[in-house]
Each structure stands twice: as C-alpha cells, then as structure tokens.
C-alpha cells in the first residue's frame, strides 16, 4: 500500500497540508493520513495496484535490467571501499535483470534472414523483419501510453475517492490543458521522444553494440545466394556493404540491405542503422538535457529565492554575475569549455556526456534565473512573506514553503522551452566534432556524417535527424506554451517583456 500512498500523494495541493483551525474544531476534516482514507475505502486503490502490478510484471525483467545494468553503480559507489555483501547483491540483481520481459528484442526478434523456399528464419513468427520490428514498436508505444494512462487514472481515482476538497486550483490547470490542442501536441511528441529514449534497446532495429559501437566483434548470419547456404559474417563487413554514400551505394528508408536487415530510415555512411543511431542518440540528448536543466534549474531557483528575499546588494551581485556569463556568446563559450575540458577525467565520463551536461548547466542558469527572478520578486512583496518574517520563521523555510511553489511553475515552463535549445546545442557541438565522442550515437553527428550526401540518393542521413530535432524542439516549446497557458491563463495578454524572455529562452544557444 505504501506504493499507492506515494504515487497518490503527488497531486495533492500543498495548501491542504496546512491545518485549518476552524475545520479542525469540528473534527470531521481533521487531517486523516491518506493511508487511513484508503483503508476506509480500499476497493479503487486495490484495483489500481493490481493493474500496476500487471503492467510492471510484463516488463519486470527490463526494469530490473535497467536498474542493475544501465545505471553506473560502480561509478556511483566506486569511490567507497567495497561494501561487504556487494557481490551477492549484484548477483541477485543480475538474476532479476535476466528475467524475461515482454517487450524486448528477444521476445519479438526482428533479425533474421530469408531462405528461398523456406521463408524468414529467426524472426518473430516467421514474419518479415520489417513487420516484426513494426509490431515491437507498436507494442512498446501501446505499453508506454497504457502505463501513463494508468498513472493518470491514479490521479482521477484520488480525486474521486480520496481527496477531501471537491475543487483545488490544480483542477483548473488540468482542465485548461484539456482544451489546449497545441500543448497536447507537445505532450504527445515529448512523450514519444521520452519513450524512444527509455526503450531504445527494444525499439532499435539492431543492438547498438553490435551495429554501431563494435561491429567487428559481432557476427550475423545471412543466406548467401551464390553459395546457396546460410553463412556467418561480422557485422562490420556487413555494414561496409550496406553503407549509404550517395550514388555508389545506398540503403534508403524502408529498405532491406543485402544481409536481410531492415532499415526503417536507412543507413549511415558507415553502414550502421540510422534508426538505432537515433534511438540511442535520443538517450544521450535527454540525459544531457535533463542533467544540465537540473543543475541550472536548482541554481536559478536558489539565486532567485535568495535574491528576492534579501534584495539589494545580494540581488545586484547576482545580476552582475549572470550578466557576465551572458555577456559571453553562449555557443562560443560552450565551444571553448568543451575543448578545454575534453582532456580532463571529467571529459571521459560517459563519452563526454557528463561534461557537456555540466557545461550546459553552468552556462544555462542565467537565462532560467532571469525568467524566474520577476515572479520571485513579485511574491517577495506579498504580505504573507512579511508576516512569516515577523513571525520569526527562518528565511530558508519561508523561501521554501511560501515562495518556491510560486516560481516552480515558471521554472517548469522555461525548463521545457530550454530543453529544446539544449538538444540543438548538443547537436551543434557534435556537428563541430566537439560534443559526444564517436562511436556513441548523437544526433548532430548523423547530420554531420550526411553533410556531403544531401543532394544524392542518400539524402536521408542529414535530413531525417534534422526533422527529428525540429519536431522535438517544437514539441518542447509547445509543451512550455501549454503549461504556461494552463498555469497562468492571463499571461498570453500580459506583459510584453515576458514574451521576449520566452522567445529568448526558446531560441537557446543560437546553434
């Protein structure tokens, strides 16, 4: 039950936690913990938990695998002396990680070969690789959206059965998003992007280590028509024959190569599968984006709160600091920092993604801070801040309880809009050969690789990744617009300067 407790608790309005002395006297509205409310009416919660268990069970192996193998535990705990019993823990984790999951490439394999007269070998139900892959993609997206719908249903149940208040301001925010088509477009595309990143191993047409990172250490089987038998070859050799290099050789979108491998959006000049490249590239873009936003968001919120609470000299010093960072052209600063830091130990972490995230975080806080400084200053003028101060509440508590909730929404809006800019910026750096090291996939490098083939039959290499970026960036902007209109419906007709900050935030790095 603790599980539901947590997930149901999130949509609660912070104001509810405050005791209202009037209602408290009557006793009826005395703050009963959510656990007791659920105990009084367990049926909806039980149904929900059953559904969640089912959904998790379908993918349990993959989730465990993600927890055990994708998160760099050795990196996180490597500094500490070895913990006794760590070996057995990791063995148990590995056992969980090896449990079968429904939506993996092993359950629905799409890699196989065609033998004349016998049909497809090694693929799911003997279907063609294209169809097997398409089934997997549809299932993954259906599963993800079902999961999200179920999480949403938790909120609906909470609202219907367990919440005291019939109405909270948050209901209006949700209601406004319901009719905001543009914002919904943003949400759908952003979710599709997140699923692409999260489920990259299952969505990709081939495993990334096999196809892109280390093709010469892996082999595949194919039917050699000349020999008339099934032959084995290294992926590297196969890739060499399925490279997209303009008129001399080309494997375009929605085609098979000579080794019966299906390429939904064609191949790279190296012969690797472009879709696999994009799926894993989405991962690294998202990681850099979220990490850098976390860094700059925390910095921006902290500075905005302290600056707004203490005002005066402190605020002025923040203005000078942020102006100084912003006085350097952002993209040039990024170029400089990524070159300078490339050879340090930081630059080696996760193919340089960590250092990029740090760089984007360190150069991105002024824009975010500027966006939330206004709202923070406005809140700090309210009488309840004065009241809290005269009541003797500690400044940090006042900031956290009475100021932070008001700027969080704005932070979210600008974070969403900035994320698109960061994705473009990372791609731009990779395009210049600075960002993420080869062979780790990154979208900008695909565009760079296809640069010479734009007007040839291999047009897909540059064009399709670019369209992906445009779509994702537009979606993040749309999401930001949607959140803004939902949180603050007046903002659209409000101040002009707000708009200018919006546009500047969305413009990003100028890449």
């Amino acid at each position, binding site marked *: 039950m603790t599980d539901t407790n947590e997930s149901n608790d999130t949509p609660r309005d912070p104001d509810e936690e405050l005791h209202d002395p009037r209602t408290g006297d009557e006793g009826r509205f005395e703050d009963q913990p959510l656990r007791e409310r659920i105990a009084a009416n367990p049926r909806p919660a039980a149904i929900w938990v059953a559904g969640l268990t089912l959904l998790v069970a379908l993918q349990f192996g993959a989730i465990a695998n993600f927890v055990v193998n994708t998160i760099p535990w050795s990196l996180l705990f490597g500094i500490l002396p070895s913990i006794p019993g760590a070996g057995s823990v990791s063995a148990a984790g590995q056992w969980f990680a090896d449990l079968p999951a429904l939506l993996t490439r092993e359950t629905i394999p799409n890699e196989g070969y065609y033998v004349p007269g016998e049909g497809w070998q090694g693929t799911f139900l003997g279907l063609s690789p294209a169809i097997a892959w398409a089934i997997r993609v549809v299932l993954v997206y259906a599963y993800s959206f079902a999961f999200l719908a179920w999480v949403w249903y938790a909120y609906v149940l909470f609202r219907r059965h367990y919440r005291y208040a019939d109405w909270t301001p948050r209901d209006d925010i949700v209601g406004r998003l319901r009719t905001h088509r543009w914002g919904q477009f943003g949400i759908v595309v952003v979710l599709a992007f997140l699923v692409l990143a999260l489920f990259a191993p299952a969505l990709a047409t081939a495993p990334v280590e096999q196809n892109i990172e280390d093709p010469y250490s892996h082999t595949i089987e194919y039917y050699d028509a000349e020999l008339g038998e099934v032959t084995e070859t290294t992926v590297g050799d196969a890739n060499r024959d399925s490279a997209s290099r303009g008129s001399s050789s080309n494997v375009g979108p929605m085609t098979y190569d000579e080794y019966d491998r299906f390429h939904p959006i064609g191949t790279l000049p190296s012969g690797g599968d472009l879709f696999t490249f994009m799926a894993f590239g989405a991962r690294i873009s998202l990681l850099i984006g979220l990490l850098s936003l976390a860094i700059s968001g925390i910095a921006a919120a902290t500075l905005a709160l302290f600056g707004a609470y203490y005002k005066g000299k402190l605020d002025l010093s923040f203005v000078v600091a942020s*102006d100084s960072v912003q006085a350097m052209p952002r993209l040039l600063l990024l170029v400089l920092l990524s070159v300078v*830091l490339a050879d340090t130990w930081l630059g080696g972490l996760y193919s340089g993604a960590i250092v990029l995230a740090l760089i984007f975080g360190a150069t991105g806080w002024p824009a975010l801070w500027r966006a939330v400084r206004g709202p923070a200053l406005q809140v700090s003028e309210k009488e309840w801040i004065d009241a809290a101060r005269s009541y003797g509440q500690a400044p940090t508590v006042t900031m956290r309880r009475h100021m932070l909730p008001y700027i969080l929404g704005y932070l979210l809006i600008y974070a969403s809009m900035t994320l698109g800019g960061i994705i473009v910026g990372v791609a731009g750096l990779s395009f210049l050969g600075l960002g993420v090291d080869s062979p780790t996939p990154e979208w900008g490098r695909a565009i760079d690789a296809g640069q010479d083939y734009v007007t040839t039959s291999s047009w897909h290499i540059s064009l399709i990744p670019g369209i992906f970026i445009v779509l994702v960036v537009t979606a993040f*902007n749309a999401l930001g617009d949607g959140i803004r209109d939902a949180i603050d419906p007046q903002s659209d007709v409000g101040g002009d300067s707000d708009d200018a900050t919006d546009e500047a935030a969305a413009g990003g790095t100028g890449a």
Partner: protein
Amino acid sequence: MSRLGYLLRRLLLAIPVVVFGTSLTFLIIRMGPIDPAAAIVGSPDTPSAQQQYERTREQLGLTKPLWEQYVDFMTDLLTFNLGQSWVLSPGTNTYDLILTYAPRTLWLGFWSILIAILFGIPLGFYAGLNPNTRIDYFVSFGGIVWRAMPNFWLAIILLALFAQSQQYFFGFDWSNFVVQSPVTGAYEFSDITTRDGFIREFKRVLPAALVLGSASMGNEMRIGRTAVLETINSNYVETAKAKGLSAKKIVWKHVFRNALIPLVPVITSEAFLLIGGAVLVEVVFGINGLGYLFFQAVINGDLPLVASLMYVFIIVLVGVNILQDLLYTIIDPRVGLEEGGA
C-alpha cells in the same frame, strides 16, 4: 533619474560585468589542461625543443605566479593591448586578424538582421491584423517551425539546395543567376562598390543570412503578431475608432508604432545570436569570419587569441545591451529608468 544619469549608471554597472566576464575567461583558459606553450611549440621531447618550450613559457609569462599572470592578463585586455596570435598565424597582431576577419561576419550579420526584419515583422503584423485566418495559421506555425530548426542543419540543407538549384527549382540556376557566384567560400569585397560585385556578394551572403536570421525571423513573426493583437484590443484604439478615424490611419499611426516597442529587445538581442551562432554557419558555408577564427583558435589551442577575441565579444555584447536599454527608454518613455539593472 535623468536619461544621462541612467546612461552613466548603466555604464557603471557594465564595468563589473566586463571585468567579471574577462576573469571567467582567464579562469577557463588557465585552469584547463591545455598548456599554451606546448600548443605553440609542440611537446618538449628533445633538449632543444625543451629549451624552446622554456623560452616560450617565459615569453608568455607562464613562469610568473598565477596572480601576477592574472593581473597582467587583465591590464593588457582592459587597456586594449590585445597581443598577437601564437599558433594560428604566429606573430600577427590580434587587431590585424580582427580587421581581416570581421568584415565578413559584419556583412553576414547585417544581411541576416535586415532580411529577418524585412520578412519577419511584416508577416507577423499581417498575421496579427488578420487573426485566425489561414494566413495567420500559416505564419504562426511557420514561425515556430522556422525557429525550431537547428541553424547548422538548415545551413546544410540550404547549401545543398542552392548549390544544385537546377535540380530542385526546375532548371533555375542560382550560381549563374545575373552574375556568376560560388555558393561557398569567403566573401570578396574588393569590387563591392560596383553593381556586379555587389550583386555577387549579396547572392553569396543570402543563403547564410537566411539561416543565421532564421531564429530571429521566427521570433519577430510571433512577437509582432502578439504585439499587434494586443494593441488592436487596447482602449486607445477603441477610442480612435469611436472618434471616426480611418482604419488606415489607426493601423499605421496607432497600432504599428506601439507594436514596434516589444520588438526592440528582439532585434537587439539578435546580436547575441549572430556573434554566437555565426560559428556553425561560417563553418558550413566556408566563410572565414570571426566565429570561424574563434573556433580555429580554440581547437588549435591559440589561447592568447581566444582570450582577446572573447574580450572583444564581451565588450560588443555589453555595448549592445546598453544600447538596447537606451533605445527602450527613448521609444517608450513609460519604461522606468530606475529598473535599469535588470
């Protein structure tokens, strides 16, 4: 506060910004693992190379304590003693380098600002005057997508389209249109005053300027549209209508003038995008302008040049910022002179 006082205050506030920004540059360059001396003479393997390495360290002042290096660094830059390039083109004065490279970037920047203004603002205003029509949707959506395109990607695509224009535009040959001009490469200003020379250079700058101005154009469309919508619904426009002013006069005299105000910061902030974003566009189009120079200096470890260029950029951007605030107070006197720091 008078306008002069305001200007003085802004200038005063700009000093710590410049000093702090330059110090940050020093920090990044000196704290990083790049050894400027090794970048210049190569790694010291042989004794003679070692000697040369030591000599270069001496010349660069790297043997002094760090705080002294910092003081030297700051005094040199703040007195506009920008030094010279060490790796990229050894011995050349930074001023000479900037004078050689800057005109190309300025030419590119000028046209990208102008094209963005000439297309973006009219389109945005038109959309604002005819809200919720098909053209409005087209402009709004186009602006959003146009802005979301990564510059370097757009540059590649446009470069390909212009270079092979016969293939895509029904036989229209861009390279030989009016005057013959290559699509990529550095600009040639020797005969810019002649008609043919001007057209040639304009043709050459057009694709790059479209790319570099793309983000600003999208911004101008969107902000122009909202600004016009806002002014149309304001009370003084209602009043003007009520007293029987012609629609033409209302639009030109009352709506457009006021709608231009929020566009000022957008236009001036283009300077940021232009200086920063020029790197990628210049790399794709093979224009050796300032962005390209900076990029080359960075990857070749020409740190003295990097620092000087960064200092120049900081000065320019801070200057543009001050100019923007001043323009704002002139165009819109309602803007408070006190809230200048923000």
